[in-house]
């Protein structure tokens, strides 16, 4: 066994060396970070646009108007059923061709992701808002509150604890999904990674493992704290509800 493991370990060490070289040669490392920044800023902008829109849509979905409910439900289901990739392709290839408008990849991505986020947030917000007990709502009504005041002073404050962990989880999903941006020619971290592999195909044919491994690490560094934070908040919300 020892005989067969040793050479393999040695060759792994030498490829690790190669991988290290590939990632840190020239400005490769900086380029990867810039790519990562592109991914994160697109995800961030999508969240900044999508969350307020989603809160409004979610609040509207708690109204008794049946038409509004159905329309907004369909909106949500569209984004649930369609793979995000299809949404991106629709926005990037088909819409500009049909409507004759030129939009940059990152803009398309922010809009498409933003709409997706708003749909998901609307469901998180609606679910949390309706979980507030009727008694609490009656108490607010008995004080003469309007629908908006009920939302502002009773429903939102009492359900925000439920919304935050789900929203953070959604944020990590959005960040991960930015890896699809490669397919609409946005220079995101995965695109940069592929460019690096391309240019090293001859000298380091096994660079892929290390480059992707490194990208994995980058995504992990960004998403793991968020995921932990969501877990922590969820735990705290549960404790509060019991207390």
């Amino acid at each position, binding site marked *: 066994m020892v005989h067969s493991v040793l050479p393999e370990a040695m060759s792994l060490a030498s490829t690790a060396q190669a991988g290290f070289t590939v990632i840190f040669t020239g400005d490769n490392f900086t380029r990867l970070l810039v790519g990562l920044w592109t991914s994160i800023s697109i995800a961030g902008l999508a969240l900044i646009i999508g969350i307020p829109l989603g809160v409004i849509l979610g609040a509207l979905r708690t109204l008794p108007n049946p038409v509004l409910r159905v329309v907004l439900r369909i909106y949500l289901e569209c984004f649930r059923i369609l793979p995000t990739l299809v949404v991106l392709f629709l926005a990037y290839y088909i819409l500009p061709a049909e409507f004759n408008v030129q939009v940059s990849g990152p803009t398309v991505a922010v809009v498409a992701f933003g709409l997706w986020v708003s749909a998901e947030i609307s469901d998180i917000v609606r679910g949390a808002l309706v979980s507030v007990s009727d*008694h*609490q709502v*009656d*108490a*607010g*009504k*008995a*004080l*003469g*509150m*309007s629908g908006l*005041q009920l939302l502002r*002073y*009773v429903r939102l*404050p*009492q359900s925000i604890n439920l919304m935050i962990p789900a929203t953070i989880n959604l944020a990590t999903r959005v960040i991960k999904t930015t890896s699809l941006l490669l397919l609409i020619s946005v220079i995101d971290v995965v695109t940069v990674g592929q460019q690096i592999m391309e240019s090293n195909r001859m000298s380091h044919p096994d660079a892929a493992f290390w480059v992707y491994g490194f990208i994995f690490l980058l995504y992990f560094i960004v998403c793991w704290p968020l995921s932990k934070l969501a877990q922590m908040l969820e735990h705290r919300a549960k404790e509060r509800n019991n*207390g």
Partner: protein
Amino acid sequence: MADATTTDATTTPNTGNRTTDTPLLSVQHLRKSYGDHEVLTDVSFDVPQGKVVVLLGPSGSGKSTLIRCLNGLETIQSGSIVFDGTNIGQASEKQWRSLRSTIGMVFQSYDLFPNLTVADNIRLGPVKVQKRAKDEVEQQMDTLLKDVQLSDYKNAYPRELSGGQKQRIAIVRALAMNPKLMLFDEVTASLDPEMVREVLELMLRLAKRHMTMIVVTHELEFAKRVADTVLFLENGVILERGSAKDFFTNPKTDRARRFLDSMSPVSAE
């Protein structure tokens, strides 16, 4: 306190002296049903200014539904509710909103807002809904809290209070809106026995100060002391009405007699 529905007694001589003659609230032929199921049938009664009306009756008799109809938390099918000179039986949700500022309600489950301190619970209605001056509200709150001996709990959260304390704060929260009428929906029903007294004593004090009140309760001793008028409901119909004294000492209907018997303390035989 800009309230379009309020009519000043002094400016409407046709109705005479409202404060003594005209009831503050007059319910006529009220009907309420959920689908085919009628829960209140032809209910009529008056609540004179400064008086206390107690609704008694077995569970499911429609007492709570009735009291909820009186501040628009339930809509009614037909009949009229004349409050302070205005028929509000078919008021829109928007009209109810301004009416509820003048009709206070306290619930069985207290329903203080758990995320707000005692003081913020009390401030919310007067400041955000009625848009009254903060200083004035603050003064009123201090007076009310002192009155219920809970001044020390101003910055406490509801979860830090006992049931009885919570319910007294809920009453203060309603009183801070300066209501003309107070509705109490089984406010001691979910309290531990030793907490009931402090809440009932507060309500007795309010009655003595001539607060107009409608009270749904199962506390017969309390009802006897506080009620000017007792209404006995069963299956959504007022079976019997009269002064507290008459009702408790000499009920007219068999059903009321049986109800009183069933509620009387257990005797060892």
